């Protein structure tokens, strides 16, 4: 048992003064006290999961190990309910779909070959519930997180997009949430110098208690700059850099109490995370300099599961072993316990693997950008992830069991009994359907009514709060159907992107609805003039423990994967957001689909809508 070492030198933030008081639960302690009860349920683990951790380890977990397993086995990190369905994205592939795929599902973001030595990486993710709790910071850190995924592939982020769903436009809660979400997206994205090239805003009372904030980032790189999240090269050093680690995202004090078997009072932990776009901007620039100078062997962003995720993923994707001294982590709050440090979700951090020869050059880049860093440990060939606290071992696990071999559930699903009635309930059969507008006047009025619906109306009141010019490479953005970014200034090589989703279609028929989302996004990209190449999706659904919701989910994935195979565009990555419900009422199933396409020359991009400069041009209607 050891005390927390003395507080580290300040970085300009006042030290929290509470005396750190907790005991350390070492691996030896765990072996010696097999009967000690750990609060696995409070950490969100199920009894069978806790039992299987014990079986994996051959002993009870330490408090720190329990912290790691609990965050890594949580739904949003382990995909334990969705995994069995998501496999279809990898299974239903044709040769053509693999042709330009450099990195597929499983890494931080997929990578597609764009030709001429260029590659593009993009991904869409959700930040729904944090944005409901604290709209500005929730949305801001949503942008921050997805951008770090892109950086961690070795790419320079070049644009963002933001599909949004809110409740009724007149509802008081929408008035609370929307302005914060919009200014959070702008506040963070604008400060990073990333043009916002599109998104969606949909108002529907079905999202009243659970608005959706999805965020997409796209980045480009030269082929040789591609980096993966793996810790290879025994003896290479592991470094954590960027912001300091605080108590962010570790919620209540449950884990703390699990570690303080004494009665010391838990100190306060933040209820929300505050984003620091400036820290992220210097992190981007310093990472690009690291990539350019070939100073990192592997790199991983710190997302939801923080150091737990970064260490276990880097270790299990690489040579298989890593040894870390956790007291080397620079802290914003010196009262954090080891378990809390492992779970912390503090923003704007990255972890990298650096050869000893490159360590000095790495440090030079950090000091040039004034980024804090600390060396945590090294890559080993033990196939174990070993974490020490002041020299005593508190974690000794097979990293694969944390990062990859978590529980997998075949959740029961069933077509809802009400689905038939729902589909039969058509507009034509309703009262409104009997009085369809017939005269020119009525039709005109109907068009005006439609146009004035907030879902159809001009969105510039929102999009004008986003910078679309920064970078000087935006060839299309709002109000066009697809955003277009020039990648190569010499050749005009570029990409077009669109995000789409229609939850009403998906509610009526999840299989077809997901396909329609893909079709719409594909069309938007194709009509801008790009050749669609790859897909990323964010699957926003209710609770997987509800068989009706699970049916919607499985049908949507089946539909989307079938459609991708049909159109021969691979899903390269994405995100699943489950448990979007309030008071037992799930949101309508909302798969958001992003398609990325390639332009050999963006000067051939076609704007949507009739252009005021195009007087006298002919109008055609194509399709059925």
């Amino acid at each position: 048992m050891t005390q927390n070492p003395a507080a580290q030198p300040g970085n300009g933030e006042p030290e929290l003064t509470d005396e750190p008081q907790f005991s350390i639960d070492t691996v030896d302690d765990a072996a010696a006290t097999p009967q000690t009860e750990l609060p696995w349920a409070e950490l969100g683990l199920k009894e069978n999961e806790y039992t299987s951790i014990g079986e994996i380890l051959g002993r009870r977990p330490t408090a720190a190990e329990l912290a790691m397993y609990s965050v890594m086995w949580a739904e949003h990190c382990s995909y334990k309910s969705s995994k069995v369905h998501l496999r279809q994205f990898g299974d239903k592939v044709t040769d053509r779909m693999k042709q330009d795929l450099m990195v597929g599902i499983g890494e931080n973001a997929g990578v597609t070959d764009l030709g001429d030595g260029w590659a593009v990486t993009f991904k869409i993710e959700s930040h729904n519930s944090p944005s409901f709790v604290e709209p500005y910071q929730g949305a801001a850190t949503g942008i921050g997180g997805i951008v770090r995924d892109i950086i961690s592939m070795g790419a320079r982020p070049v644009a963002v997009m933001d599909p949004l769903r809110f409740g009724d436009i007149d509802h008081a809660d929408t008035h609370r949430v929307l302005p914060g979400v919009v200014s959070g997206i702008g506040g963070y994205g604008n400060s990073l110098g990333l043009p916002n090239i599109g998104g969606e805003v949909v108002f529907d009372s079905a999202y009243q208690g659970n608005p959706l904030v999805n965020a997409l980032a796209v980045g480009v790189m030269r082929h040789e700059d591609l980096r993966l999240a793996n810790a290879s090269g025994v003896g290479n050093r592991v470094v954590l850099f960027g912001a300091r680690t605080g108590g962010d995202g570790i919620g209540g004090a449950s884990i703390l109490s699990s570690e303080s078997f004494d009665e010391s009072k838990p100190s306060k932990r933040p209820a929300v995370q505050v984003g620091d776009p400036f820290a992220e901007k210097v992190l981007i620039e310093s990472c690009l300099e690291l990539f350019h100078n070939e100073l990192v062997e592997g790199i991983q962003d710190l997302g939801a599961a923080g150091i737990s995720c970064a260490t276990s993923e880097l270790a299990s994707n690489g040579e298989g072993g890593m040894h870390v001294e956790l007291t080397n982590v620079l802290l914003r709050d010196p009262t954090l316990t080891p378990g809390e440090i492992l779970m912390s979700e503090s923003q704007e951090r990255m972890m990298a693997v650096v050869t000893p020869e490159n360590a000095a050059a790495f440090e030079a880049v950090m000091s040039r950008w004034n980024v804090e860093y600390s060396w945590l440990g090294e890559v080993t060939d033990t196939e174990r992830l070993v974490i020490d606290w002041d020299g005593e071992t508190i974690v000794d696990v097979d990293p694969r069991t944390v990062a990859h071999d978590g529980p997998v559930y075949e959740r029961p699903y069933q077509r809802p009994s009400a689905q038939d009635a729902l589909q039969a309930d058509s507009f034509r059969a309703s009262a409104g359907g009997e009085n369809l507008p017939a005269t020119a006047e009525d039709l005109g009025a109907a068009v005006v009514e439609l146009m004035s619906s907030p879902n159809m109306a001009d969105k510039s009141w929102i999009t004008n709060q986003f910078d679309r010019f920064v970078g000087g490479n935006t060839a299309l953005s709002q109000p066009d159907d697809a955003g277009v970014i020039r990648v190569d200034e010499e050749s005009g090589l570029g990409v077009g992107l669109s995000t789409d989703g229609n939850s009403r279609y998906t509610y009526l028929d999840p299989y077809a609805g997901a396909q329609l989302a893909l079709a719409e996004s594909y069309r938007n990209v194709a009509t801008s003039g790009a050749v669609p190449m790859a897909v990323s999706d964010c699957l926003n659904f209710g609770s997987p423990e509800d068989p009706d919701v699970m049916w919607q989910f499985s049908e949507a994935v089946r539909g989307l994967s079938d459609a991708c195979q049909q159109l021969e565009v691979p899903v390269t990555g994405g995100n699943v957001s489950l448990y979007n419900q309030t008071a037992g009422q799930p949101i309508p199933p909302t798969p958001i689909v992003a398609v990325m396409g390639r332009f050999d020359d963006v000067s051939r991009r076609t704007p949507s809508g009739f252009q005021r400069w195009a007087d006298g041009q002919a109008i055609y209607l194509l399709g059925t």
Partner: protein
Amino acid sequence: MSTESPLIGSFSASPAQQLDGARIGVVTFPGTLDDRDAARAVTLGGGTAVSLWHGDESLHGVDAVILPGGFSYGDYLRAGALARFAPVMNTLIKEAGAQQTSSSPLPVLGICNGFQMLTEAHLLPGSMINNDHLKFICKDQVLRVENTSTAWTAQFTADELIAVPMKNQEGQYVTSAQELEQIETEGRVVFRYVGDDPNGSRNRIAGVTNERGNVVGLMPHPEHAVEAGYGPDDATGMRNGTDGLTVFTSVVSSLAGGQQ
């Protein structure tokens, strides 16, 4: 059939005069965003862009300096407030400021965040506060060029109307009544907003110059209006506006001619 979409100008197309002699420094601060854009604009304007670093006191012998837009230090505290204390700014204040006695003081252009830095450094009068509507705003903006005697505006015609993007949150220009009067009577308003006032700036001022006319700051972004296809809309088509390019050709030719 003439259904061809508007074409985007080629990046490599060079302007009529190529005056490689003019070396124009573009400073990067932590949080600077538009440095690459400013450098591209310098190149398109016929000059040679030289990147300068906030932590380096030396201006490396450049003939003019651009402080580009962005969110230096996150715009924390006040926009431009922390960048003003960077080592490069100490040199810039000496070379461009009032104490400078040489006959051709260094031309300096501050765009958006750069303008905010120049007011924080008191190289330019006034200051910027939050927009009156309290929001970040990104839009095409029409400006009137009211002073064509600076190195940065020499090639505009007097009172020429130009369209360039503007995008800022702290862009409302304020100053004391007395100073405002002085700026106006001395003809030091360089750019003025035309049309609806976008942010509540005093006298719709979008850009000003110092007494000697070598330092110019403006909130909108001429460097985002230099390439057809990526700029604001103009009379010829969507995103075709290149009015901002004249700022860069102006300084290049002013430097070449050695005139101010």
